[in-house]
């Protein structure tokens, strides 16, 4: 704040100077014209200045301007926030009509907020817009990837290079422990849409609603922020065809370091005589391709945009990858003199993926490096499949795992949305929207009779079950119905926009699966009915169906006083079936205000200086239905003996019901500053927020007795967090043949579990996780305590070795102990101190170059690979991990300690693109042609010894346990893409 005030007084000083340096010009020429945006609409407020002279003005509401300039003026500059400043040479013309192109920073002046749009300058809460130009490039298969590192406060990570893996998206650290730690996604108005139902190629812009006042209009599901996705739409005019294509080569960038065959044998490992690099055996240069064809245009009140995307992606692990076709149609029809607007959005996609097995990289690290891949020796061809296998826990030939077993999914997504908006009278519009979304996943697994692999996946081996097959299908279906009424009016100098709405959404999830073994031949395993298990009662059949509903009333009032002062008031009252009878409804209000100081004082350096403050409340739902109800289910594995060989299904409670379960509430205060200076060459945003999430919904340990089960979903406590976000863009050089734009964002946050509810014993912890199987299921590695930041990595402090090679740990009293359980304490923090992204774009002639650097600083990771295997004593079964921390003197069983917790700060070159725009004759059929090369993950700077130092924001869904690098993480990869964009 201090800095801001200083800057302000400096500006006032400059302003005073201007007042004294008046100049009068007697004679000049009059220039008029109109400034429009790419859609043809006039832009109000564009600064028009004569070069080298004190003459200028701004455009009016229709975008027109008129000014008189001295005769000697040779050019005019047009500048406006969010658009590239243009310079137009003055010769003899008296009319200049120009179109401003949006600058990289903002596609348009318009920001999409919940249930409507606002001009950027009217926005009074923390909202960031990212346009298609700013998206990450290259082999981007997931929408989250587009935004990675682009928005201050929005953390996106996907450790490892699994092409079928999902991204963790966290806004401002952690907002909630409820169902939605990931932001709510709204696609073209469809609330709660699946982020993966839209192809990255089809997106025009993404708006991120960061603070509670912006998100409050979405009430219940806005706690983790909102991503509003706007897809590309057609504009009136002749059809435009564009074709984009890219091919990508992806290679592993780093494997987990381990003993070579020689080192393994020297350490006492059994030598089978070969020298196998297991990681090489299971990985490859993955080749992927993407094709996007789109068609758009419009006439007679109809506009359309249709596109088809095809993706064929390979993963770096052999046999992994997916193919996807995604088709989208956006159709708009205007009628009744444009008073009635129909909108139709259709998306259909089908993705067939080979999921492969994440354990393969673990096994490649720990499998005996002297073993051959294949063998006919019955001592090691244990399952008769011709692969070398050994009988150790959690251990299998990784090549066999990937080659023999099939784990595939076919995901079909269908989104249908229709809306009609009618303008009843001037400024009063009524909108009806109906949309539905269907997600269907058809899963198939085939484990042949010769497959030895048994761990984790389905918990069976094909060999042990004489072949095993699984088929299952899951369907999620939701329907949304909304009405909104908006009214725009003006009272003298005050513009008012009012919105009232009703929303109803239903969710239905159902599915079934069959798993059965014992086949005569693997070939017919797709006919699961031939499995003998079905006849002898050993098959597994599951089936489920559950549902929930949301209903909400909402309203918003926007006030704009002469584009100087802005106030927004929002409220949403929302009810959910998922809470206790008396707690179903929640109220989520918000208020925000902004003041454009540059409109109050004509501050020379600043063309925009807006301060804003907001407060809002959002809510969070529990992750599943029925938690407040006492219900009975049958346990299919436990039937009751009813005598004479007969059995009875037993019904009993499936949870500790919590009839008092209520909304988790997040209250957030945000103050921000938006500014533009140096003729809009530099724009920036600064935010500070402070928030409290109370009545956290968490599955917390409860005493048995009196409870039936040892966990209950309860409202357990309060999470407090605060943080700073800063984003800056600067058009450093803007010449006709060369330009350089640079921008960056910086965010820092810390999240504290500030209180736990009274029925949880003082000093106790929640959210603990364990190191895992095999053998370390009870070894706790993280905890969350009341009064502490979340992300505590917890364990014994390593203090060296004794003379016999046994581990020594801090005993908490100044001495050492061999017992790792004597004293456990904080040994790391899983969340970063700050994160930043830095992007640079250069244009020189027909060439453009962009590179993007991303960084997270200050987080630690539990390197579980090292915690399990960095110890030569494991060679009796496993190959040992060997990093710079490896100590050959260890002669002890492996024990987790601070030795295995590492600083994982990193800076990486996330993305770099070099493009060339071909100069084409205007008469030719091809209107534009661009070719580019792109590299992703080109280099990392980190001290972390594991494969990927990315932040782990949660651990298998446990948001209280960040900071655990699991062995199931895929290897990190880097990729190179060659692409063309053609416009017709």
């Amino acid at each position: 704040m201090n800095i801001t005030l200083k800057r302000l007084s400096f500006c006032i000083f400059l302003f005073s100077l201007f007042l004294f340096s008046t100049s009068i010009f007697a004679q000049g020429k009059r220039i008029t014209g109109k400034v429009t945006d790419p859609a043809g609409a006039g832009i109000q407020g564009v600064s028009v200045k004569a070069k080298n002279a004190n003459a200028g003005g701004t455009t009016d509401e229709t975008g027109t301007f008129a000014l008189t300039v001295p005769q000697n003026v040779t050019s005019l500059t047009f500048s406006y926030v969010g658009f590239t400043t243009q310079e137009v040479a003055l010769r003899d013309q008296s009319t200049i009509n120009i179109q401003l192109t949006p600058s990289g920073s903002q596609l348009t002046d318009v920001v999409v907020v919940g249930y409507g749009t606002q001009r950027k300058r009217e926005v009074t809460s923390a909202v960031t817009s990212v346009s298609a130009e700013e998206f990450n490039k290259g082999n981007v298969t997931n929408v989250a990837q587009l935004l990675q590192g682009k928005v201050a406060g929005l953390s996106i990570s996907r450790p490892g290079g699994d092409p079928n893996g999902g991204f963790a998206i966290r806004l401002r650290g952690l907002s909630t422990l409820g169902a939605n730690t990931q932001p709510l996604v709204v696609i073209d108005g469809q609330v709660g849409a699946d982020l993966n139902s839209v192809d990255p190629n089809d997106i025009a812009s993404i708006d991120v609603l960061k603070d509670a006042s912006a998100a409050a209009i979405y009430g219940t599901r806005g706690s983790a922020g909102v991503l509003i996705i706007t897809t590309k739409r057609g504009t009136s005019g002749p059809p435009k065809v564009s074709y984009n294509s890219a091919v990508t080569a992806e290679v592993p960038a780093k494997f987990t370091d381990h003993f070579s065959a020689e080192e393994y044998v020297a350490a006492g490992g059994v030598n089978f005589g070969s020298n196998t690099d297991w990681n090489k055996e299971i990985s490859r240069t993955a080749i992927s391709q993407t094709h996007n064809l789109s068609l758009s245009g419009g006439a007679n009140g109809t506009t359309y945009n249709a596109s088809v995307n095809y993706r064929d992606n390979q993963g770096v692990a052999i046999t992994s990858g997916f193919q996807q076709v995604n088709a989208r149609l956006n159709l708009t029809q205007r009628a009744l003199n444009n008073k009635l607007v129909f909108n139709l959005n259709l998306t259909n996609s089908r993705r067939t993926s080979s999921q492969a097995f994440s354990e393969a990289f673990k096994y490649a690290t720990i499998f005996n490096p002297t073993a051959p891949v294949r063998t006919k020796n019955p001592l090691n061809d244990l399952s008769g499949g011709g692969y070398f296998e050994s009988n150790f826990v959690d251990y299998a030939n990784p090549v066999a795992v990937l080659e023999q077993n099939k784990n595939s999914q076919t995901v079909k997504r269908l989104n249908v949305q229709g809306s009609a908006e009618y303008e009843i009278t001037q400024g009063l519009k009524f909108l009806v929207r109906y949309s539905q979304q269907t997600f269907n996943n058809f899963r198939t697994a085939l484990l042949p009779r010769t497959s030895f692999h048994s761990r984790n996946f389905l918990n069976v081996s094909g060999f042990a079950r004489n072949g095993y097959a699984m088929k299952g299908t899951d369907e999620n279906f939701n329907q949304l119905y909304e009405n909104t009424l908006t009214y725009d009016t003006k009272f003298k100098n005050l513009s008012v926009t009012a919105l009232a709405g009703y929303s109803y959404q239903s969710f239905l999830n159902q599915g079934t699966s069959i798993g059965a073994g014992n086949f005569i031949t693997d070939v017919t395993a797709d006919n699961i009915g031939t499995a003998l298990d079905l006849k002898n009662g050993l098959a597994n059949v599951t089936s489920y169906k559950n549902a929930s509903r949301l209903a909400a009333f909402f309203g918003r009032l926007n006030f704009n006083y002469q584009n100087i002062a802005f106030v927004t008031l929002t409220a949403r009252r929302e009810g959910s079936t998922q809470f206790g009878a008396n707690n179903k409804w929640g109220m989520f209000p918000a208020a925000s205000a902004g003041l454009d100081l540059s409109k109050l004082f004509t501050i020379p350096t600043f063309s925009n200086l807006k301060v804003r403050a907001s407060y809002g409340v959002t809510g969070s739902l529990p992750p599943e239905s029925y938690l407040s109800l006492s219900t009975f289910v049958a346990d299919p594995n436990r039937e009751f003996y009813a005598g004479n060989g007969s059995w009875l299904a037993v019904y009993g409670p499936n949870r500790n019901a919590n009839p008092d379960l209520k909304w988790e509430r997040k209250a957030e205060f945000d103050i921000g500053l938006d500014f533009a200076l140096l003729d809009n060459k530099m724009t920036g945003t600064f935010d500070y927020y402070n928030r409290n999430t109370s009545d956290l919904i968490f599955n917390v340990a409860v005493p048995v007795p009196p409870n039936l089960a040892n966990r209950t979903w309860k409202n357990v406590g309060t999470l407090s967090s605060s943080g700073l976000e800063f984003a800056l863009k600067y058009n450093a050089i803007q010449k006709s043949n060369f330009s350089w734009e640079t921008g960056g964002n910086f965010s820092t946050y810390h999240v504290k579990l500030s209180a736990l509810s009274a029925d949880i014993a003082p000093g106790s912890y929640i959210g603990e996780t364990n190191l895992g199987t095999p053998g370390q299921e009870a070894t706790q590695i993280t905890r969350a305590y009341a009064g502490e930041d979340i992300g505590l990595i917890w364990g014994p402090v390593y203090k060296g070795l004794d003379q016999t090679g046994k581990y020594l740990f801090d005993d908490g009293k100044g001495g050492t102990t061999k017992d790792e359980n004597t004293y456990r304490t904080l040994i790391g923090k899983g969340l970063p101190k700050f994160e930043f992204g830095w992007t640079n774009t250069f244009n020189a002639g027909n060439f453009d170059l962009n590179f993007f650097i991303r960084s997270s600083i200050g987080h630690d990771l539990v390197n579980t690979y090292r915690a399990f295997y960095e110890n030569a004593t494991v060679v009796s079964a496993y190959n040992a991990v060997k990093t710079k921390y490896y100590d050959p003197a260890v002669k002890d069983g492996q024990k987790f300690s601070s030795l295995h917790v590492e600083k994982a700060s990193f800076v990486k070159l996330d993305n770099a693109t070099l493009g060339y725009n071909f100069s084409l004759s205007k008469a030719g059929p091809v209107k534009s042609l661009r070719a580019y090369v792109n590299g992703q993950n080109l280099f990392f700077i980190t001290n972390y010894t594991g494969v990927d130092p990315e932040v782990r924001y949660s651990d298998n869904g446990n948001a209280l346990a960040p900071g655990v690098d699991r062995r199931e993480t895929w290897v990190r990869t880097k990729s190179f893409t060659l692409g063309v964009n053609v416009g017709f």
Partner: protein
Amino acid sequence: MGLALTASCTKLDEKELLYDQVVQDQFFQSNRELVSAVGAAYTNLYGFRGGLTNVNEVTTDEIVVPTRGADWGDGGHWVRLKLHTYKPNDSEVNGAWNMLYAGVNGCNRLLATLEPLGTAQSIAFIAELKSLRAIYYYWLLDIYGNVPLSTDFKDITPPPNSTRKQVYDFVEKELLDNVAKLPKTGPNDQSTYGRVNFYTAQAALAKLYLNAEVYTGAAQWDKCIAACDQIINSGKYSLTLNYKDNFVKDNTGASEFIWAIPFDQVHAKGFNLNHQTLHQESQKTYNMTAQPWNGFATVAEFYNSYIDPTQNPGPQGTVVGLDPKGTPTTGTVDKRLSNFLVGPQFDANGVRLLDGASDPEDPDGQPITFTPYMNQLEPRAWRQTGARINKWEFYNGMTSDLSNDVAIFRYADFLLAKAEAIARKNSNWNDPIAMALVNQIRTQHGGVTPFVTMTDVSFLAERGREMFFEAFRRQDMIRFDKYNKAFTFHPADADKHVNILPIPEAQINANQKLKQNPGY
């Protein structure tokens, strides 16, 4: 469509959205549903072979779960059971507690539902459920001592500890109040098989009284004898012709079963001894549908109590010896040696099993030989060491859930209980009635020579041979003051606080009224 939706615009009753579960109020609509609900109190017992058995066996001289290199390290909790250094957050300590209180709570819940009904069937169930709950509390007081007494399902305030004496009094009173209302059905009566009947309650009383001195400081030998006599004199039970008959796959209704868990590979899953004890390669011996885990075993010292002619006089013959190779030697051939799987192992076609991953130091090499000898407890017990537990019949094609029923209370146990109570009451281990009861078992089950003299040591050894791995060894060793003494892989305990286990850390964390047991 839109209008239809608007009509239900604010209706948020979740009960209308239930599809795969039923609201409690809508259950209990028929007798069949009632029995199905009561069954839940019993199916909880399918967890009997988990934490409950493990804390009562792995802590004793009968069973060891060694760390075999990368296998079974499990954060050291198996080793801690053996060393009596168990911690409040160890998995088996938690497992036993959770299973037992799930049983208690299940009974409480059903009692709260049944008590208002007042039908003949519900009244019969109430006596049965109260007795079953008392048995769950008997285990709790035996293992954890000062456990919280929770009896009213509607009372959701976390309960404080009760003293061990209070829990003892509660168990005794509940059993005595309800025993007469229970049916006097025999071991193979299908109307009560697997359920608590009159004799089950008597057996529980006998166990309570046998250990009363440990629990309360006051011995109750006469009461123990009386409870045993209710069983013995009923004429409904007898020793099986062969010891093994109690443990074969099709053992339902065996003549010794006072109370058994009717395990079944399809319907009643939870008995996975085959996985706990057999070597991975043993899969081929039995054509198992999953691979075993090579864990639980018996050590030479305990195995020797069967073959050593001094401890166990009887017919001599060739038995697997105690050296690292398991070399055949001469020893007592007790029929109950079938409790163990030792010696060379073969696949189903008689081909010797080989372990491609065998330990280089193991003198048996790759050919698999199970030896009573075990080189160490941790960290690298050889993969083939340890006599494997073969008490319940392993059969061809077995899955990870065995179909053999498991007796919780077995007739032979109460012959021994009566013998012990008499001997202790008279302070004479050579009491002729006691000796006759013991020798009845020795001759019929073991095929070994009757004792002519008996001591507390030889009696405990006999209990061990007969009751091996039936989840009583911990309380037996405590009663005979052997639990804190040194035995294989277990140095003597510094003090006796370890005779009751710590209350799980999760419970102490979640229940502020709960105090940890002394010494933890």
